[in-house]
């Protein structure tokens, strides 16, 4: 792994796009629209956040991949004293969002599973990692805070509010609780395995939940969910995996300081990835590995995916597809082909061709 770290404020795709004259128009537009939507939401909801309470958005809005059909997945994150008003505030936020239109279109509320559109407490997220109390919702919120979350309060107040505090605590917990980083551990290159295991668990949970939702919702929106799982959700997992990979044999993270200082050093390094976006993490990593061609391929594939998601009629078509006839549907098959292309590139990078990433994936990815 190169001896450096991603710069979170930098948009690596934008830089590439300038040289390719609008090759990834949908990706660039989705980013611009997402940032605009975040600011719009902050303006409309600015009375709710405080030093202890944050409104955090997730999903495509946080990944900066906003398309016309995107949901507004949000959580009222509380990192402070309990207060009965938090419940009514969460309710009021939901009601406010129900009434809002962005760019002439009413905003889509979060899904019905209750993971979003609700309150969340930092204590549960930080303390319950694994065990009976680490519910699907808790684990999902925790990992998404690392992989795709944006604090609305942070857009104005700076990056040290409740969301950032919670994120830092989560990372600290993963590092502090990892026997790889105990003082007596050897001096060899280390990766945060505890974190990696939870990221892998999250990815597999998304896959299992795909089947669960199919069962519970009798196949409703199956095609759309399937395409998302194979592309955007898969790339989210890849970005999480690459975040951990960034520690693999990274000379700049040499164990040259006291154990506590080493943990803070790693935490700071990982925070840069948390503050970036999944697509930027993938682009940055591949470029730094000298895999420019694979990087362009992934962007081309993702551009096609976002173009489909941004086309209201195509999206609606996918939403309404009947599971029995889905494999005869040309639009679905075209989308499926996009996901197959992605799978081929990922397999090449991670398994087939000799590279540090292959070494990492083989050593830590499965067993």
């Amino acid at each position, binding site marked *: 792994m190169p001896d450096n770290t991603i710069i979170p404020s930098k948009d690596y795709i934008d830089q590439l796009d300038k040289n390719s004259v609008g090759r990834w128009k949908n990706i660039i537009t989705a980013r611009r629209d997402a940032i605009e939507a975040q600011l719009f939401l902050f303006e409309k909801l600015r009375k709710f956040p405080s*030093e*202890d309470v944050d409104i955090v958005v997730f999903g495509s809005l946080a990944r900066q991949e906003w398309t016309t059909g995107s949901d507004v997945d949000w959580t009222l994150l509380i990192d*402070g*004293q309990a207060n009965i008003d938090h419940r009514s505030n969460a309710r009021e936020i939901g009601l406010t969002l129900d009434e809002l239109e962005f760019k002439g279109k009413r905003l889509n509320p979060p899904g019905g599973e209750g993971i979003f559109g609700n309150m969340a407490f930092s204590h549960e997220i930080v303390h319950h990692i694994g065990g009976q109390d680490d519910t699907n919702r808790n684990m999902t919120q925790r990992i998404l805070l690392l992989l795709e979350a944006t604090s609305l309060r942070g857009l104005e*107040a*700076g*990056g*040290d*509010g409740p969301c*950032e*505090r919670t994120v*830092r*605590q989560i*990372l*600290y917990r993963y590092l502090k609780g990892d026997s790889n980083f105990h003082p007596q551990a050897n001096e060899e290159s280390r990766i945060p395995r505890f974190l990696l295991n939870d990221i892998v668990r999250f990815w597999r949970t998304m896959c299992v939940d795909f089947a669960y939702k199919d069962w519970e919702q009798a196949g409703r929106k199956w095609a759309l969910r399937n395409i998302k799982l194979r592309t955007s959700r898969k790339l989210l997992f890849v970005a999480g995996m690459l975040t951990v990979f960034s520690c693999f044999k990274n000379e700049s993270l040499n164990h040259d300081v*006291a154990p*506590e*200082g080493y943990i*803070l050093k790693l*935490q*700071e390094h990982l*925070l840069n990835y948390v503050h970036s976006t999944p697509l930027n993490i993938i682009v940055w990593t591949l470029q730094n590995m000298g895999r420019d061609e694979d990087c362009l391929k992934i962007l081309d594939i993702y551009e096609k995916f976002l173009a489909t998601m941004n086309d209201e009629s195509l999206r609606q078509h996918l939403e309404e597809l009947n599971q029995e006839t889905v494999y005869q549907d040309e639009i679905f098959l075209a989308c499926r082909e996009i996901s197959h292309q992605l799978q081929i590139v990922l397999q090449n990078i991670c398994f087939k061709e000799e590279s540090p990433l292959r070494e990492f994936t083989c050593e830590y990815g499965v067993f």
Partner: protein
Amino acid sequence: MKIGFSTGSVALNDVRRGIDIATHTKTNAIELSALREQELVPLLRLIDKLQNELSIFEYIAFHAPSKREKLSEEAIVSKLKKVADLGWAIIVHPDAIENFELWKTLGRAVCIENMDKRKATGRTAAQLKPFFDQLPEATFCFDIGHARQIDPTMLEAETMLREFHGRLRQVHMSYVNSQSQHERLNYESILAYQRVAHWIDNSIPIILETPVEQDEVVEEISLAKKVFELVHLDTEEEPQNHQIRN
């Protein structure tokens, strides 16, 4: 080790009593507090009268008003010139600084403190940087309790200490609760502070902002020393016990 209290934490606005408590306990450093604007002029007057009492301290700092009420910024800076001339650190909250040119005249006496979560700025290293850029001579008062409140993992504390290490002039220490109130040091805060103690050299004065009674001063100092027990292994001379000496 230079260690002592802010007069505000042991005697609220009664500076004379604060000095008295410090003199009769094991402290060799003190911070004279004029946190409220109305305390500034009386305290400046008092300094002349207290020269003898203050001469026993190895380190003296002066806390400037945190908020302007009646006085102009120019008037405050001009009054603080007297403190700067004494060579003492003037602890200043970043949000009290508007006209950088004025504060520049105080040179390295200006000692900028990092803030708690209530303040709109000065909470993080990134937010402090513009202040130091504008005041190149300014020094740094690291409030370890504020830093922990902003980020309990202490990463932000470490970032501040790394970024402004060369400017570090003194440390404020207390447990800052979620309501931004200063409390006595506890186990939780000591453990957190130990994580960054290696950044704080033995020569840096520690000013406690913990609200204690006179009979709790010695105990509080020994708690503060626990923060450094793993890094300051060389046994330094104990602060003199003025009560015994006198």
